[in-house]
């Protein structure tokens, strides 16, 4: 179930970036010369779970009323 979800997320990302490295692939950044603190996740969401939750949201229904559309 989780793998299926992950694959569908990856497919969606690949529609935008066809040459995106797979999360399991050995990437150029995976073999750093010095100390490598790869703690960066996102500049939109402090925690990864927030991001996954928000990405699926549609425009709020009050958008039209508040002139935000």
């Amino acid at each position, binding site marked *: 179930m989780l793998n299926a979800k992950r694959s569908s997320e990856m497919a969606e990302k690949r529609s935008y970036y066809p040459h995106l490295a797979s999360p399991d692939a050995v990437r150029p950044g995976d073999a750093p*010369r010095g100390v490598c603190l790869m703690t960066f996740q996102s500049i939109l969401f402090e925690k990864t779970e927030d991001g996954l939750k928000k990405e699926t949201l549609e425009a709020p229904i*009050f958008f039209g009323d508040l*002139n935000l559309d």
Partner: protein
Amino acid sequence: MNHIGAIKYRQEIAQDLENGTLLKNIKSFSQKMIIMRRYHTMIEKLYNKYHKEGWFLEAVIIYCDTVKSLAYDLSQVELKSRGLLAFREYITNYADSDGFMALLTETEKLKADLSTVKYCMLINGNKVKVCKYESEIDYSTEVEKTFEKFKQSAVKDYLSKLPIGSGMNHVEAAILDLVAKLYPDIFLNLDDYCTKNADYLDETIALFDREIQFYVAYLEYVAKIKRVGLKFCYPQISSEGKEVYDYEGFDLALAYKLITEKSSVVCNDFYLKDKERIFVVTGPNQGGKTTFARTFGQLHYLASLGCPVPGREAQLFLFDRLFTHFEREENIQNLRGKLQDDLVRIHQIINQATLKSIIIMNEIFTSTTIKDAVFLSKKVMEKIIQLDLLCVWVTFIDEMAYFSENTVSMVGTVVPENPALRTYRIVRRPADGLAYAIAIAEKYRLTYEHLKERIKA
């Protein structure tokens, strides 16, 4: 977003991006990434293998250059936000990693090798022969030199300009295949390179490229509004206290439209203190009441996204849900009248709302008699007060403004000397329907003088 930490995380990043140099560099990064993606889109439409591989190499060249430039640019600016500091650390390590360096070296070498490819084409009738260039004499230089002495003055250039495009016709493709046969090692390396680096794009860099658009787009939108002197601020966000305020606030979408039309924008202030929870907005039609209500909703929504909001200084509430009740046209499908529809919708809102919600109501119960509207409004108001939530209520019923200690009266004002003119200022003061009664009477020719004139006539 529903926790303050997440909002502050974004506010810090947006504040860092207010540094013009950094924003310019980030935009340059995005532009290059767009070009890289454009190359990949183009590759999908090409059919010749080497042609595709050539553009793939160009895409990687741009990618490597973009990564290096961004890593350098970020190292040159002072950053305070946790998000950009973490990203800077990531990209610095990534740009310095063995993997990236190997990709860069391999890419540069391949590009250099390809630039050594030189060939000649011998065209004879409908036959084209391709061979290696072996320092044959370039006769065009000789010819130019011979005829130089006859040149009297500048002459019109009759050379036709051949279009430079990314496409390739079947003849060019066949020539390229022949060239590949002349330099098998270089083109074999190109094949291997493309296979090996098919997934060269780092997921985190790609994610950054996508996410940074949120900030860039909003800050660019805001910049246009700031240029006319309107203010934006990073609001304090409260998840418990409901004392909210905003000074010199405005409707963002309306301001953008007015600025585009070169019209002026009116700012308004508001605050709620102690037990105050509900703004009851009254005043003349077309006087800015709805705009005030929208502004309140927009400010809270934008603040919840971590964006700077319109205003000089603001403190806003972290809501769980935002509900709006604006006038809707009757929907023939649901077989409900306007009053029934109003009641059904407000009932649903009250049922779903919590003490952390915000409700924005614009002219409810306008389709019934004043007596019924007052009765129903009071019932709804009781429920809202019971919920202890924040609310803006635009209404024509003045008495709602004095309902309880939880309500605050805000009034749309007119020019005192000419009540027909709106100021679009919404001020905190007792509702006084009389303030614009004269203006309405004049508009409909119902003043004492007008009536007397009519009777005489």
